[in-house]
């Protein structure tokens, strides 16, 4: 027969295994709906992405493209070094460092009629920081 020490060890090891299995299951179920790809306006135009799928759109805010009436609903155009453009709509408070000509990453969905509905906007914190994805795709300036 097993000694009690071996038995207790077996219990804990199998519990640990169970935990890992549970984590794997949760991840497998949670992941597919949650993957957000990074796209530039040019890539967005080339790909046929269904509306409603969350993605991260990065680019530079085109100078002169920003418009708002009430300060709550915002509209602007993003571009990248390959010249593609995408109109973005955002509702809510703008980040403090939101400026024309600056790189941002907008997380949101395509609205199906040519626009992009952003839920969150990521601007840089200070002048020296550029999000990694933007360094590769939008660093034209």
């Amino acid at each position, binding site marked *: 027969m097993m000694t009690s020490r071996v038995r*207790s060890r077996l219990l804990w090891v199998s519990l640990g295994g169970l935990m890992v299995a549970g984590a794997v299951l*949760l*991840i497998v179920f949670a992941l597919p709906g949650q*993957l*957000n790809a990074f796209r530039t306006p040019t890539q967005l135009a080339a790909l046929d992405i269904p509306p409603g799928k969350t993605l991260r759109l990065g680019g530079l805010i085109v100078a002169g493209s920003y418009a708002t009436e009430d300060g709550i609903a915002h509209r602007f155009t993003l571009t990248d070094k390959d010249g593609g453009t995408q109109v973005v709509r955002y509702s809510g408070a703008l980040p*403090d460092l939101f400026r024309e000509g600056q790189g941002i990453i907008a997380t949101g969905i395509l609205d199906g009629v040519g626009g992009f509905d952003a839920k969150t906007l990521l601007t840089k914190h200070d002048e*020296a*920081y550029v*999000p990694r994805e933007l360094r590769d795709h939008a660093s034209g300036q």
Partner: protein
Amino acid sequence: MISEWAHLALILALPLALMQAVIALLPAEPLSWTPRFRQSVVRGAALTSAVLISIAFLGLVYAFISGDFSIKTTFEHSHTAKPLLYKISGTWGNHEGSILLWVLILALFGGMLSLRGGQRHQDLQVRALGVQALITLAFLAFTIFTSNPFERLIPAPIEGRGLNPLLQDIGLALHPPLLYFGYVGFSITFALTVAALLRGEADQAWARLVRPWAMLAWTGLTAGIALGSWWAYYELGWGGFWAWDPVENLSFLPWLTGTAFIHSLMVVEKSGALRVWTLFLGVVTFVLAILGTFVVRSGLLTSVHAFAVDPSRGVFILLILALSVVVAFGLFAWRAPQFKAGGGFAPISREGALVLNNLFLSTGAGVVLLGTFFPLITEAFGQPLTVGKPYFDATFLPFMVPLILVMAVGPFLPWKRLRNHPGTDDATGKDSAAIAATRARVRGLLTLLVLALALAVIVIVLLHWQSEPRMSVAVALAMVLAGWLLGGGLLTLVQRVRASGNITRVSLASWSVSLAHAGLGIAVFGLIAGSAMVQERTVNLSPGDTVEVGHLTFRLEGVREAQVDPAAGRNYIAAFADVAVLNASGGVDKVLSPERRFYPIRQDSTTEAAIDVTWLGDVFLAFNAQAPNGGYVLSLSWRPLIPWLYFGCLLMVLGGGLGALAAWRRVGRMRQ
């Protein structure tokens, strides 16, 4: 002149750290060093390097205060027209200065270890100081060769560029030093763990010696994370108190494994079981702390909290990281099998609960680690894919629910080693005692459940009395869980008071566990309400307009401006929106003034929220912009129980501090 001396001190610390590492870690026999000689040299070196690096750091602080813009760091991040507090905290509000702060805390901890540690553990102390010196060496080299804070500018500019306005905040004065205190505090437990691996010995005395350091580091890390969360909560655009941002996750990872570590150390100290696992946690926690400090700076992950990053430095950082991972885990893999298995224990016992705690915490850390680095992992296969809050909620929270269930009960379970002669436990004479014990256990569980329900009901009723929150069944159940945890903490204290007969005779350790567990319970209440029950509206108002948000009615009274006034410590132009909170009869309860600031030096603006803290929640107002149509854009919100979150964290920090003190005293007793 002062900065020259500071620079010199920093450079001198480098060979000193090398010498300390060599003397401490080389085999003594062929060199015929006496242990005493070796110990005094190593301790002296550790103390000297603490002094040298303190001189370097204070020199940099002095350069910031006096406005010595011949130093590049000062020029880029300071300005004469800046309040003194921000001149001082601006020292670490940039890459170079914050790395120097990291190294300073490392050296101070090394100095502390050289003063404590005692006669009986001479060899352990010397080797740990050797490991500590290696870490210091690596990061000093990183500082001096890639991030030298004392780099000169010729000719010296007359004025600096000023500090990033977002950083001109009390948060910068408090959050980084405490966070680093936590991160770097785990360097001592890492050093003691590696020393134990080198010596092939990790007994109960070792665990007892490590515990105060682990508790101290945990306390600092908890305070640092809580303050960071608080800063992100009131600073707009940072995603609120917790957004599962990579930078937040990276600080959370060592906290999770560190929490597992302080609990598994208890098992080692008590029964000698879990030794290998505890050594593993000791290594992993500091590796995660390095990861936390430096991945943020390497720019590998995109974060809302990322500041000036330099990819060229990233290579150096990854090198240090890879080296420490390979060496530490290599040593672990080589040495760990030589450790004998410790004693076993019964499944339902304090040890059992602590093992469960470790399993849940480390699995939780695993899923957070995977989610945080998912963009890098997927990028290796092509397109980088990120995961957001829904992933973390779905994979992390399921492990926290059972953790909390066990956490409230654990402190009541007795320590129980397995008997080596099976059968004695089942002897018929013990049947009635076993039945009585089971009965007491069931009664205890029922008491706890009733208490949990009562606490949850009280909180829910209070929230409903205040307003009409939308509350789902899931939120109500989560409240019961929080009540379970808070109730567990309270009952633990009650039980210890009963056992010792008098509240003044309750041990520090018991206060520590009660406060920390109850504190987390209170914080969980805050987390639940603060994420599921917030009521918020972003509106465009003209003076005189009223708007309702939840149970609150607001009226914009007007907008006023204030000019730059260096004498009053104001290096910006401010615009205030005066918003009245109206009571039921339409009278003004109070006026809150959220603010927009414009910093002429850097041409930046910031949004400063106005927060009215009440014991049931925060009224949180932000002044976002003036709209082209003439109105003012304001975000108005009611955030229930947010103060509970931070009060709970405060209790946890208090509990951690008392735990460190208690552990410290036990080491003292051991020495006598």
